[in-house]
């Protein structure tokens, strides 16, 4: 009797029931689409963060150099003398990247010994600047090229000193070896069994940098006068902000004349819930350090990805809330109106001895069924919406600061240029200010059972709220009053 009565009643007022179901379906569809798009934004952010950190890295630790430290830029030698005028020169300078100060490698061990830390590794990120030119005959004391009539060229590249014994965490954890895979793998394995094997003058070169400089496995690269053999080429990912050259940490420390030092520590927490604790513990251990989590870094991502993220988290959420409220309101209004039209019916049922709870159950059941129909339609709309977002969304870009670089003010000293031999002459701004990378991304709207479940729960909740309001109205009806009004 219950279901027959319920089904026929819904059929009788099919138009109103359809309106409620469609209202809930639109709301549910919107929730699914927006939540899916928000998940897509998170996935995209995750891609960006992975490209900065490497897979599995939860926290990075860096320490900014004190203002005024570093002593400016000197490439050796004093001001040119008249006897040097016209002579060519070549200078190399290797310095800690992005105004970072170094941290003792013992701190890496201390961090890795923290309770909730699964793994930690230290890297030494360096900038290698190579200047060549001809001494001019400028006034004594002039060391910069700006006053010189004789041009010189500046080229720079980044070098990361990595510990091959820690392949699971750090910048190479997400790298794909695109050339020399076998030897690279053998190298990593050898380092694992015998750490001293990691001190060879071998280098991995980023595939883009290798392409620009015509490098391949077996080529030689010179960093500040030290020759390294290219063991293989690596590609971190399409979205990666890679270093140009990776060398063993011990060799990087020698190049920088900083034995036993690192300037970035990559940390993996034992669980996602432990990240905050680990962050606090590291901050306690290294009070001057900047301890950055993925969540912190996500806030530094700008560009259209950031805009999409803001849209998803602010506008999207408000839109969802507004549409849900409108749908719930519509459902409640139509259900209450339906109860008002059925006063005689409910009065008669009460006269026949139907308890109010049974009548409330009838109204509630009708509303929940409308909610379920709305939920089912909403899933269809939501899946369609998510499909359209994935297919039609314009490409996004994320602009991020390079990993491990400081936050000093940007301001180019020199413009960068590409020389005829293909060597990239990077602007000094890259060296002394946070380098930025714009990463193209495609927005998707991945759906999960959780999202669909949430949407159906919302639709049922909408039906329940409407049913409770309608049922409450029906329960309050006094049979005498109901029958009098009807008569």
């Amino acid at each position, binding site marked *: 009797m219950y279901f*027959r009565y319920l089904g026929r009643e819904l059929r009788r007022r099919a138009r109103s029931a359809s309106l409620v179901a469609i209202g809930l379906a639109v709301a549910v569809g919107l929730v699914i689409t927006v939540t899916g798009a928000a998940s897509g934004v998170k996935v995209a952010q995750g891609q960006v963060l992975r490209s900065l950190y490497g897979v599995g890295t939860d926290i990075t630790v860096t320490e900014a150099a004190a203002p005024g430290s570093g002593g400016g830029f000197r490439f050796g030698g004093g001001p040119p003398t008249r006897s040097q005028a016209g002579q060519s020169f070549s200078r190399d300078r290797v310095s800690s990247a992005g105004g970072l100060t170094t941290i003792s490698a013992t701190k890496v061990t201390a961090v890795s010994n923290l309770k909730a830390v699964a793994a930690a590794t230290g890297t030494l990120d360096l900038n290698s600047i190579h200047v060549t030119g001809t001494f001019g005959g400028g006034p004594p004391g002039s060391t910069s090229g700006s006053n010189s009539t004789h041009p010189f060229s500046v080229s720079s590249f980044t070098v990361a000193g990595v510990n091959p014994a820690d392949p699971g965490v750090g910048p190479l954890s997400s790298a794909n070896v695109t050339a020399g895979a076998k030897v690279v793998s053998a190298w990593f394995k050898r380092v694992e069994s015998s750490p001293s094997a990691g001190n060879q003058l071998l280098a991995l070169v980023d595939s883009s940098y290798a392409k620009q400089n015509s490098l391949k496995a077996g080529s030689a690269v010179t960093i500040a006068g030290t020759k390294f053999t290219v063991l293989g080429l690596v590609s971190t990912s399409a979205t990666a902000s890679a270093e140009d050259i990776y060398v063993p940490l011990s060799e990087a420390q020698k190049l920088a004349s900083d034995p036993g030092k690192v300037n970035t520590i990559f940390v993996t927490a034992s669980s996602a819930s432990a990240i905050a604790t680990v962050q606090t513990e590291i901050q306690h251990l290294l009070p001057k350090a900047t301890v950055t989590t993925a969540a912190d870094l996500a806030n530094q991502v700008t560009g259209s990805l950031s805009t999409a993220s803001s849209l998803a988290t602010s506008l999207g959420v408000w839109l969802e809330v507004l549409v849900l409220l409108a749908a719930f309101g519509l459902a409640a209004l139509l259900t209450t109106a339906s109860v008002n039209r059925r006063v005689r019916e409910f009065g008669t049922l009460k006269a026949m001895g139907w308890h109010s709870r049974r009548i409330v159950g009838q109204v509630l059941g009708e509303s929940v069924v409308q909610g379920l129909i709305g939920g089912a339609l909403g899933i269809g709309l939501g899946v369609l919406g998510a499909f359209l977002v994935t297919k039609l969304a314009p490409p996004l870009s994320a602009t991020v600061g390079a990993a491990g670089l400081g936050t000093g003010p940007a301001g180019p000293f020199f413009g960068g240029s590409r020389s005829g031999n293909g060597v990239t002459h990077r602007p000094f701004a890259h060296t002394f200010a946070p380098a930025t990378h714009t990463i193209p991304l495609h927005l998707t709207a991945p759906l999960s059972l959780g999202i669909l479940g949430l949407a159906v729960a919302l639709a049922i909740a909408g039906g329940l709220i409407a049913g409770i309001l309608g049922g409450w109205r029906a329960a309050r009806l006094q049979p005498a009053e109901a029958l009098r009004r009807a*008569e």
Partner: protein
Amino acid sequence: MYELTNISRVYQKGRGRVTALKEVSLVLQDGEFLTVQGPTGHGKTTLLLLLGALDRPTSGKVNFDGRDLGALAESQLVDVRAQNFGFVFQNYNLMPTLTAAENVEAALVPLKIPTGQRRARSLAALAEVGLAERAAHFPGELSGGEQQRVAIARALVKAPKVILADEPTGNLDEVTRGEIVVLMERLWKERGMTMVVVTHDTRVARRAPRTAIITNGTLSLRMNRDKAASDDPKPAMSAEPVEI
């Protein structure tokens, strides 16, 4: 048995108060057939609602089988209604989405009778009012007279102690009115239940041994001498339509 003692019912209407019944007292024996007459808005339906435990008096007592209905909790009143009273309304008040059989069955739902028994009893009740072949029809597919028969079957199906009918023939043509009156009289006699019928129609009212006349909320009783029922509580009734 009903025993109404000094019943008053006052309604709040806007800023004013309307007294629907004033100090009404009445004793109604089990198996009695009473008709209620009076001008519109003078308290007939109010009396019926109080008798059917659908309303409570403002003052006074409505005793039914020794229980003060005004003192019972709402849930107890619902149970009293479910077990004892069958209602027949002027507008039939059938559920438009349920068939004739299902409408009758709905009266048995509160009694927690198993579905199979409910169905059998509702079909039997429909057969008793001559509508067995219309059991699967929806109210919209039935004439006014047929709908009122379904409503009567719905009132009778649970074998109530009391049938309360509010203008049961008010919306019917003369021929159908006669058929319905005869049907109700027959059922009353066969089942021996108490029956109270509110009517505007004097010819219908005179079918009962006693008529309660309500004017301005006060009640007076009239004996209908021309009614055979007043001479014999269980007279044999003609199945012929009543001439009215």
